[in-house]
C-alpha cells in the first residue's frame, strides 16, 4: 500500500501499464523530462526512455492524429491535452476518426487510445485553463468518457482506460489532483468502465455528481446528515457509457435527486441524467430534479471562478427546495 494523491495515482497507472505492455506510449507537450505541467507523467521518461514518453511539437491536432494512426497500427498511445481548454484542435480527429475507426472498418481497424486532459477550475489558472466540457465528448458515439474523483478510482479507471480496446477520453479534475491522499495498492487492478460508484448510502435524497464536485457533494451530505437528512451520494465516474441503472435504483429509493456538476448547465451531462429519470423514474420522483451546475456563462478568470463553481451552499439550497416542495 502506498499513500498517493490523485495525480500520483495517474502516474502509477501509466507506469504499471507501460511496464506490462510494450505498445503503450505516452505522448504530449512537456510530458517528457518535465513530467507534465502537473507532474502527471513525472518519472516516466526517466524510467521508460524518450521512445516511450514522447515530447511532441506543439500541435494538438497533430498529437491526436498521430495517436489515431498509431493506435490503428497496433500501438496504445496515451496522449495528453495539456489543459482541456486546448483539446479543441483534437476534436476533428477524435470525432471523425478515433470514435469511428472500428465502426467504419467493420472491426478491421480500431483505436485503442486514451486522451487524458486535466480539466475544471479552482486552481487560479489563466483563461481557458479551467473549463469543463465533458458533455461534448459524451455526446459522441464510440467514445468512452471517464472522470475519476479519488486517487484509487483514478488508478483503477486509468488502467482500465488504457487496456480498453476502444478510445477513452479520460478527464482529470485538477482541482483535486492533490486534495487528499489515499492508500492504494499498486497492483495493476483496474476498475469497470461502466458502473457508477455509490459513495454513501442514503434514503432521503440522491446526490449525483462526478469529478471535483464530489468534494462539495460529500461535504453537503455530511452537513445534511447533521440535520437528519440522509443523502445518497453517487459518483458517476464513467460518464459514457452512463450507468443510469444505479442512479435510477437510488432515486426509486429516495424519490429525490439533485445533480451537481461544474460544467455549464445547458446541455451538460446533468441534463442526460435528469432526462433518464424523467423517462425511467418519473413515478418514483416526489420532487423536481434539480441541477446545481456552473452557470451558462464563460468560465470567469480566477477572481470570480469560485462564484461560478457550485459550492456547498448552492447544493444545500437545492436540497432544501426539493424537500420543501414535496
Amino acid at each position, binding site marked *: 500500500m502506498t499513500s498517493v494523491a490523485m495525480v500520483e495515482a495517474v502516474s502509477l497507472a501509466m507506469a504499471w501499464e507501460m511496464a506490462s505492455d510494450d505498445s503503450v506510449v505516452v505522448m504530449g507537450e512537456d510530458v517528457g523530462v518535465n513530467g507534465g505541467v502537473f507532474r502527471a507523467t513525472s518519472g516516466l521518461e526517466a524510467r521508460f526512455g524518450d521512445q516511450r514518453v514522447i515530447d511532441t511539437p506543439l500541435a494538438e491536432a497533430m498529437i491526436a*492524429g498521430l*495517436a489515431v*494512426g498509431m493506435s490503428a497500427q497496433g500501438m496504445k498511445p496515451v496522449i495528453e491535452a495539456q489543459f482541456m481548454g486546448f483539446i479543441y484542435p483534437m476534436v476533428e480527429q477524435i470525432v471523425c476518426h478515433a470514435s469511428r475507426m472500428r*465502426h467504419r472498418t467493420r472491426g478491421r481497424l480500431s483505436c485503442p487510445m486514451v486522451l487524458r486532459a486535466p480539466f475544471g477550475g479552482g486552481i487560479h489558472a489563466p483563461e481557458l485553463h479551467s473549463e469543463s466540457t465533458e458533455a461534448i465528448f459524451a455526446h459522441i458515439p464510440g467514445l468512452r468518457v471517464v472522470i475519476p474523483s479519488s486517487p484509487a478510482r483514478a488508478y483503477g479507471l486509468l488502467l482500465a482506460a488504457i487496456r480498453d480496446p476502444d478510445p477513452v477520453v479520460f478527464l482529470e479534475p485538477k482541482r483535486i489532483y492533490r486534495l487528499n491522499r489515499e492508500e492504494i495498492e499498486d497492483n495493476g487492478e483496474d476498475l469497470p468502465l461502466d458502473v457508477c460508484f455509490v459513495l454513501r448510502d442514503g434514503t432521503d435524497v440522491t446526490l449525483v455528481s462526478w469529478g471535483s464536485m464530489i468534494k462539495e457533494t460529500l461535504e453537503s451530505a455530511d452537513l445534511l446528515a447533521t440535520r437528519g437528512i440522509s443523502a445518497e451520494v453517487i459518483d458517476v465516474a464513467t460518464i459514457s457509457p452512463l450507468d443510469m441503472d444505479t442512479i435510477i435504483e437510488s432515486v426509486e429509493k429516495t424519490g429525490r435527486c439533485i445533480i451537481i456538476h461544474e460544467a455549464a448547465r445547458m446541455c451538460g451531462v446533468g441534463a442526460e441524467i435528469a432526462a433518464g429519470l424523467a423517462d425511467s423514474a418519473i413515478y418514483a420522483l416526489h420532487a423536481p430534479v434539480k441541477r446545481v451546475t456552473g452557470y451558462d456563462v464563460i468560465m470567469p478568470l480566477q477572481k470570480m471562478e469560485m462564484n461560478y463553481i457550485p459550492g456547498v451552499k448552492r447544493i444545500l439550497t437545492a436540497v432544501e427546495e426539493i424537500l420543501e416542495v414535496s
Partner: protein
Amino acid sequence: MPATIASFKIDFYQFLAADGRLISDDVPPLATDWEELQSLYRLMVTTRIFDKKAVALQRTGKMGTYASSLGHEAAHIAMGSAMRPEDCYAPTYREHGAQLCRGVTMPEILRYWGGDEHGCDFSGPRHDFSWCIPIATQCLHAAGAALAFKLRGEQRVAVVQVGDGGSSKGDFLEAINAASAFQLPLVLVIINNQWAISVPRSKQNSATTLAQKGIAGGLPSIQVDGNDIIACRWAMETAIEKARTGGGATVIEMLTYRLTDHTTADDARRYRDEQEVKNAWQTEPVKRLRNYLQAEGVWNDKKELALLEQAGVEVAQAVEEYLSMPDPDVAGMFDYMFENTPAELEAQRTQALKECN
C-alpha cells in the same frame, strides 16, 4: 549585409512528354522495363474502365456519390504500385487505382460507395487505412503509422496523398512538421489536379508550387509531371526507398488534372471552362503511356483490344458481385461501435431490431 543561412529549390521532373516521347536520355530504368510498364499500363486502363462503370452505376441509381479518378491514373497507379504490401497506405476518396494495386477488390470499392461500411473491411493489406473523407486528416494517420513503424524498428513506410485543396489545411502542414520532428518514414504526395471542387489551384495560395510546403519542415520536396507514370513511379520509388532506409520523409507534388466533375454530385460546367478541360485531355496519362509503348513497339492495337476486353469482363464480374451482395443489417449499426458493447447500447440494439423490421 545579410547572411544567407539556408537555401532551397524545387525541381520539376518529367521523362515522358505529353505526346509520349522521352524528353531526354537521362531516364530511370523503368523507362525501358517493358514488362513493368505494360503492367502499369494495364492497371491504368483497367482503373479507367472501372471508374467509368462506377460513374454509370451512380447515374443509374445503383450506387451513391462517387469521385471519379479520371485523369489521375498515372499518379494513383504510381503510388499504389510502388509500395510493398507491408507498407501502409492512407487513401482519400479518389485513389481507386492505387487501392486496386494494393489488393482492394472492385466489389469492395463499389460496396463502400454503394453505402455499406462492409466495403471497408477489405482484402487490401488489412492494416491499410480506409477511405478518408475529412480532407487532410489522413496525413496525420499516415504520420502516426510511420511513427509506429519507427518506434517498433520496422522497415515499413507510410504513404499518403492530399489534394491541392487539402494542402491548405493545417493537418497537412502539421504532418510535414511531424515528419520533420520525428524523421518519419513517410511519403507525402500532393496530387495537384488544379481544382478543389470549384476552387482553382490559384485560390489556394499564390506560391509557385505546392511542393514548397515541404520546405517548412526542411523536407526534400519535388514536383513531377503527374501524368507521366515514369516520373511519378520514379519519384515514389526513390522517396519510399529513402524513407525505408532511415532517410526520412519526402514531399512530392504531382501535377495532373481532374478531367471530369469533382464527384457525381457535382457539375463542373458551372464553374470551369470547357476549353481548359479539352486542353487537359492533350496531356492525359493513359494515352501518353500508350503512345510511348506503341512507338517503342511494345504495345499494339491487338494487345489493346485484348486488354479492353479482359478489363471489361473483370469490371462486369465485379459489378455483378457487387449487385448481388446482401444489404447491411440493422445489427451492424451497433455491433462495431465497441469491442465490448455497453449495456445501454445493447438495449438500443434490441429496440432497433424490433423497430426496423
